[in-house]
């Protein structure tokens, strides 16, 4: 596959993932499964942009790692905050 074709395909993947999120937003219920799917969708979208649009896939390891870690941490926080809201509220109460 040529570089251009890879980029075209990834763009379509990003669009499809966004529509999946929108569909989930319209559903009334929030469950562990739906929150996990949204977190994974964010992780995948972030990784595609970092690796292929920003072209960091083969770039300097420090820069690549910093940018990739962002899209592990935020999705993980989404899941942790969904699972343990009361505990986090207790720990962060002034």
């Amino acid at each position: 596959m040529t570089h251009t074709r890879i980029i075209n395909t990834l763009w379509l993947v990003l669009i499809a993932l966004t529509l999946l999120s929108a569909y989930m937003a319209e559903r009334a219920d929030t469950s562990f499964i739906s929150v996990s799917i949204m977190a994974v969708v964010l992780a995948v979208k972030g990784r595609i942009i970092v690796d292929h649009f920003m072209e960091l896939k083969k770039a300097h390891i420090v820069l690549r790692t910093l940018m990739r870690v962002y899209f592990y941490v935020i999705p993980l926080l989404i899941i942790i905050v969904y699972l343990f809201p009361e505990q986090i509220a207790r720990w962060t109460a002034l």
Partner: protein
Amino acid sequence: MNALASSYVPQTKPSAEQLNFVVKKANIPGSMAIWFAILAEMSEFAIMFVVYFLAKVHNPELFHEGPTRLSTLAGTTNTLVMLTSSFFVVRAVIAIRANKPKQSANWLWAAVACGVIYLIIKAFEYHWNTTQGLATETNIFYGVYYYVTFNHFLHVGWGSAGLIWVIYRINTGIYTSNEHEGLINMAVYWHMIDLAWITIFPLLYVIR
């Protein structure tokens, strides 16, 4: 003896190897300076996301109800527009590498158009919110929503202006297939604005 003596002669000029070490470019797209800016901005957005998470755990009802009163259509459309603009910017980079500056400028104009569409949709969304009685002081969810999204709105504004500047530089023949670091800098900065939005979208519009 002579060879030994010459080895003690202090070198006034750095060797080719030393020079190579100094000028050897780290393997990063664009310049180091733009990456400092990007990492600083990503950190700024990260702080906003932490504020969002903390406000959410302390106000679960408000953050459950908040997204239901926002326009999912506006949020989704703007996500599609941002992702598409990023795609256009990648195509502009591919075009300049293929020595097609005119094509590259056209892709960037398409990205600018996306930036403008984004700003118009966001303005309509803010107006729509106002008619629904949603404002910064309505409750903490909308306070966070306006703070984060307006901050991002400004980024799209000056990012679009930056893209126009890069188009001007392409049209004046400054960027070639071999030398177009300024275009790459703007491209990665624009992708950062896209990254911020794809994170904001699920947090404020989707997750309850």
